[in-house]
């Protein structure tokens, strides 16, 4: 019986851990990318003819800002599927 309980606790721990890991890990990139996009929009509003380069640099910046989010996603998957 207590193996069952141990199993249940382990699964619960994994679920909570993965949830927290991804949840908290998503805050940083969210704020960072929001900032980047808002500044890019301001730039585009001020200079519409530079919209092309602004957009590609913004996308590239957002992709790099996403790295920490992707790290926490990978760790969450490791917790869920490998641990």
């Amino acid at each position, binding site marked *: 019986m207590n193996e069952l309980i141990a199993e249940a606790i382990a699964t619960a721990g994994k679920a909570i851990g993965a949830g927290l890991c991804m949840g908290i890990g998503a805050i940083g990139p969210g704020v960072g990318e929001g900032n980047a996009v808002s500044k890019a929009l301001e730039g585009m509003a001020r200079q519409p003819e530079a919209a092309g380069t602004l957009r590609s640099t913004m*996308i*590239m910046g957002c*992709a*790099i800002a*996403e*790295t920490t989010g*992707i*790290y926490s*996603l*990978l760790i969450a*998957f490791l917790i869920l*599927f490998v641990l």
Partner: protein
Amino acid sequence: MDLSVTGAFIYFTIPVFGGIPITQTTVSSFLVAVGLIVLSLVIGRKLKKRPDGWQVLVEKGVGMLYDMVEQTMGKHNLRWAPLIGTVFLSSLCGSLIGLTGFLRSSTADLSCVMVWALAVSAICWYNGIKYNGFFGWLKGFTKPIAVMTPMNVISEIAQPVSMAFRHFGNVAGGGVITGILYLALSMLSAKILGLIAKSGVAVAIMLLALGIALLLYRKLKHSKRKLTLILGVLSAVLGLFGLLEVTGVLKGVPVLSFGIPALLSCYFDLFSGFVQAYVFTLLTMVYIGNSCPEPEQGAQE
């Protein structure tokens, strides 16, 4: 949860040097390489003065590549353009090959992407040593002040690790999330259709009839019409699928999981594949560009 998240499946192992495993990633990356080589040979064979068809497209692409390399790395680094183009194409085709269904995208495997990242770092170290001499390169680590050495060493190691994990995380993570969505939708459709099937054929037919009635009923005020349309479509679809489920035609087929995950894979596989290839290539250019200074500068140091 019976979702099986597996790495690259090993087809067989070559029993030399203690068994070299041939995995799905090896197969798809070889296919990408052979495909690109054959494509470039075919297009490169009959180059015409007045380009037409494929050649126009390829010339535009190569032109864009050289402009980007010149803009990012400087005129003296144009010799790296073929390498940059190869990295971009193999990363892009590596990610998109997963869309063929039976092949696994080669970039969804850390071993493939980490090799590229380490190769880029090795090129940077080689250039660093070539231009500044071995000790000059080592001295470079204590550039601003000696205290910064551990930080510089860590940032040197973090460079390939972050490039590899960013690309791998996006492509592989997207695949896992799409897999989870498939599982959730098939569970959902099993629950709903099972419910209708359990409650008998009559309910399914009645639901279908209700749906069709709602769709045909036109005399409502404008505000009510949208609601009845949605309800009508919903009940008609559920009734139809319930009917098929009950009569055994669609026994156990996860009907709801058609279509919807395709939207997700449009983002994860297409958009993210392009963006990750672009980011990986741009970082390669920036890193190699930093390690190859201007010829005059190189002479002075």
